[in-house]
């Protein structure tokens, strides 16, 4: 039994015919452990290989085969537990979860039931509203983290009456991270998942790729009158994007309220989220629930860790996303918003630190968040595949800083860099975009402009606004390369302003 003391912020209440309701949400996240081999066998875990090409005798459940725990996966789980501010259990144990299915060759999944490797902890989550603003931070309790094997993949679509099975995924290590039922809105839930994602990515314990299913969430939803008795929960399985998590919760909460207000009762059941229709539907009811007959796996000894092993991992932990964000705000003077965007994941914060090194931090942030993210977004490219590297973007900013090019020309250079024409210096050189800072040359252009527009030059003394006209003429003559500041100064002098 669990309790849920915190009552939602009234703005998160859902209106029903009988008044306000609040949503109680708990999450089980399955995060695939970043590891070259599986949890109990030496098979490769590489994604996208030929079906059934990464299956050992152990994975295929051949007679007499035995599991041997992959120590690296254990280390990854401990690291993640530490990253989640959670208790590391020096004693944990693997149990068998028994059920029959074609993609489960052993007839049981090795998991941790009674004694998980990681116990309770707590993390702080910053929900973001629809406009992208941060809301009040929320504490979310971690119930546990345990290691378990993934099952294989059943493919029903290749034939109308046959099921194909790919065992490549079978036996891959997963971390199941179970939260306490501490979330009260779809935004809190998705912020929690995003937070976990950031943590495991920073730790390098899971790549966090939700599209590939390497990080997926089972969402437990129930509703109650604010602060009242807990309702019956439903579990929505395998939701694999932050947006879908929010949609699924909204749909499910509304469904519960409608049923209860119509005098009905919620059936405790497992549901699926249909992302096309944006709705959840029954997968299996409580009556169909398996009796998994958990018992300690007699093929494996209990996992006993030395405190020194945990201490060593702790001492090697990388800087965590919250710490990086705080540092960005203090060291680089970034706003909370900028720091949050730039520390959303390890890739972004690493990129930013390269760009900002020995440069104007704010300009670096603006270029990254504006031009670079805009271009990537438009092209549908991830930052790690960006055609403009951090060094290239830094090089461009350097050329603005040393006045080789103007900010305006820089936009053009950036576009060319993004299109793959080389680094800033190459493009500036090749396209002849170097800003003219030679005052003699600019003076000549100014003289020409004044000579060609003598009447306007006379009027400029009474109407200083005409300065803009002359600046335009000179810039046009220089094909945009004249240093605008120098043009301004010389024009003012020559026009006697």
């Amino acid at each position, binding site marked *: 039994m669990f309790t849920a003391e915190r009552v939602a912020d009234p703005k998160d209440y859902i209106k029903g015919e009988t008044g306000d309701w609040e949503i109680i949400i708990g999450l089980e996240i399955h995060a695939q452990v970043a590891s070259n081999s599986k949890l109990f066998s030496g098979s490769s875990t590489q994604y996208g290989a030929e079906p059934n090409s990464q299956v050992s*005798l152990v994975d*295929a*459940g*051949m*007679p*007499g*085969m*035995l*599991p*041997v*725990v992959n120590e690296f996966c254990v280390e990854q789980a401990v690291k993640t537990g530490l990253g989640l501010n959670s208790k590391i259990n020096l004693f944990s144990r693997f149990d*068998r979860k*028994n059920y*029959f299915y*074609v993609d489960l*060759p*052993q*007839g*049981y999944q090795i998991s941790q039931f009674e004694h998980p490797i990681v116990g309770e902890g707590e993390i702080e989550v910053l929900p973001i509203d629809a406009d992208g603003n941060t809301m009040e931070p929320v504490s979310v309790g971690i119930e546990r983290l345990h290691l378990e094997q993934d099952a294989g993949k059943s493919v029903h679509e290749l034939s109308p009456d046959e*099921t194909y*099975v790919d065992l490549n995924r079978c036996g891959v290590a997963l971390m199941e991270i179970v939260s306490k039922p501490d979330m009260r809105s779809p935004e809190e839930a998705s912020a929690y998942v995003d937070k976990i994602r950031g943590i495991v990515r920073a730790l390098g314990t899971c790549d966090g790729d939700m599209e590939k299913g390497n990080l997926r969430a089972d969402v437990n939803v129930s509703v109650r009158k604010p602060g009242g008795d807990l309702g019956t929960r439903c579990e929505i399985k395998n939701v694999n994007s932050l947006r879908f998590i929010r949609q699924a919760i909204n749909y499910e909460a509304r469904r519960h309220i409608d049923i209860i207000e119509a005098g009905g009762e919620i059936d405790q059941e497992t549901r699926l989220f249909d992302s096309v229709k944006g709705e959840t539907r029954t997968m299996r009811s409580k009556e169909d629930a398996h*009796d998994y*007959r*958990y*018992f300690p796996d*007699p*093929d*494996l*000894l209990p996992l006993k860790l030395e405190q020194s092993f945990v201490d060593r991992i702790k001492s090697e932990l990388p800087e965590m996303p919250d710490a990086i964000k705080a540092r960005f705000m203090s060291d680089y003077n970034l706003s909370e918003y900028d720091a949050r965007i730039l520390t959303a994941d390890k890739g972004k914060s690493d990129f930013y630190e390269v760009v900002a090194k020995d440069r104007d931090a704010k300009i670096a942030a603006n270029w990254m968040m504006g031009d670079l993210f805009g271009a990537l977004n438009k092209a549908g490219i991830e930052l790690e595949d960006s055609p403009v590297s951090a060094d290239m973007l830094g090089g461009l900013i350097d050329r603005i800083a040393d006045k080789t090019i103007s900010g305006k020309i820089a936009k053009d250079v950036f576009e060319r860099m993004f299109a793959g024409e080389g680094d800033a210096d190459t493009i500036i050189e090749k396209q002849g975009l170097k800003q003219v800072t030679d005052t003699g040359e600019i003076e000549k252009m100014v003289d020409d402009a004044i000579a060609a527009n003598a009447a306007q030059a006379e009027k400029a003394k009474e109407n200083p606004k005409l300065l803009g006209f002359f600046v335009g003429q000179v810039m046009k003559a220089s094909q945009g390369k004249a240093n605008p500041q120098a043009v301004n100064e010389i024009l003012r002098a020559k026009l006697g302003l």
Partner: protein
Amino acid sequence: MTDLTKLTLEAALGGMDKGEFSSVELTQAHIDACAGAGKLNAFITDTHELALEQAKASDARRAKGEVGLLEGAPIGVKDLFCTEGVKTCAGSKILGDFKPTYESSVTANMKADGMVMLGKLNLDEFAMGSSNETSAYGPVINPWRKGEDLVPGGSSGGSAAAVAADLCLGATATDTGGSIRQPASFTGTVGIKPTYGRCSRWGTVAFASSLDQAGPIAKTVKDAAILLESMSGYDAKDSTSLNVEVPKWSESCGKSVKGKRIGIPKEYSIEGMPSEIQSLWDQGIAWMKDAGAEIVPITLPHTKYALPAYYVVAPAEASSNLARYDGMRYGLRVDGKDLNDTYDRTRTEGFGKEVRRRIMIGTYVLSAGYYDAYYLRAQKVRTRIVEDFENAWQTCDAILTPTAPSAPFAVGRKVNDPVQMYLNDIFTVTTNLAGLPGISVPAGLSDDGLPLGLQIIGKALDEDTVFAAASALEKAAGFTAKPNRWWK
């Protein structure tokens, strides 16, 4: 030439060493013996051609001076050990003609030591049984006979019968609740279950993982020691394998037991035990005393709970271990109207009655609502049993008990009474529950002239004392009786 099949393993190895005969000759003699012993039904699969090839290769190695521990010795392998390229079916229909692409660690060790494999020995289906009557390949018949066919014990009935009938110089076996020692007792052979973790379980078809342990059945204590030396050893592929050195156990045989304290547990005098068993036990006590050992009465108070606890833990683990036989990837498959129907039909047809019974028991004791009352309670009993032995070791170095509560019985006598059948394991299950080594040594004949065994139980990893005490018993008993070769 003398009948080479009458030799002990030790004598046969010595004979080859001296060049008296070759492995090919020795192997051929055993192949001929096997060919004439079809009535015993000891083998499921013969590998005679392969054996002759291995014998030839062994002779070639010996000629080059490469002599392994089992060099050129024809051995039988219980059909629970996976053997590369050779049908392995665990006495079950469900595995069909399954040919593993891999070799069990135990048989791989023996092959590396020069073993010649004669074939795969019959056994109770998935090693579940005490009479070798649950095999899908028919019962094994005990070479010892008294007017009617007798069971050889089980589950390693094929191993015990083959050794007793001189069809092989020794055999691999496995023991989950007594499956090495009880058949050894029933056939006048020696069988040892070593400390849990001595022999790797990798590549051996699992029955109950926390209890299963491989060991040999042999003609003499010394032969058992030689075989166990070869079978044992740390294996990183088995997480429960013990990373300890393998001692030269053949040197433990014949060591004096003077001053050793031999415990006699009062709880092993059970009600209704035949008087011939009690008197054999008394005889054993006298022999040990004569050999210079000190006899110490001990108490193992939780003994009476051992059998029920065993018949909860073993089926529980088995119900899960046997889930993989689902007709999807290998072995038998009986197609049904949908997936669940295919599972039902495959497993109903593929498994015999006893295996199905144990799967049902195991499933029941692990199910929600019953787990605490059965499985968890049985585990608590197990802890008590371990403590019983821990306490006993305060006052003794080894324990002497009968191996089985009866002499071999007739085929068909107990097969329909599971509880009677399960009682066969009453003296042997405790060591499996506690992970201790136990050996059965032929010690005498019943009133009907059938073999009876005594058991020595030792401390964990102290096979040294077990072998020393066993060879003292062997020497005192002077058991030379052999079944007459009625099957020829």
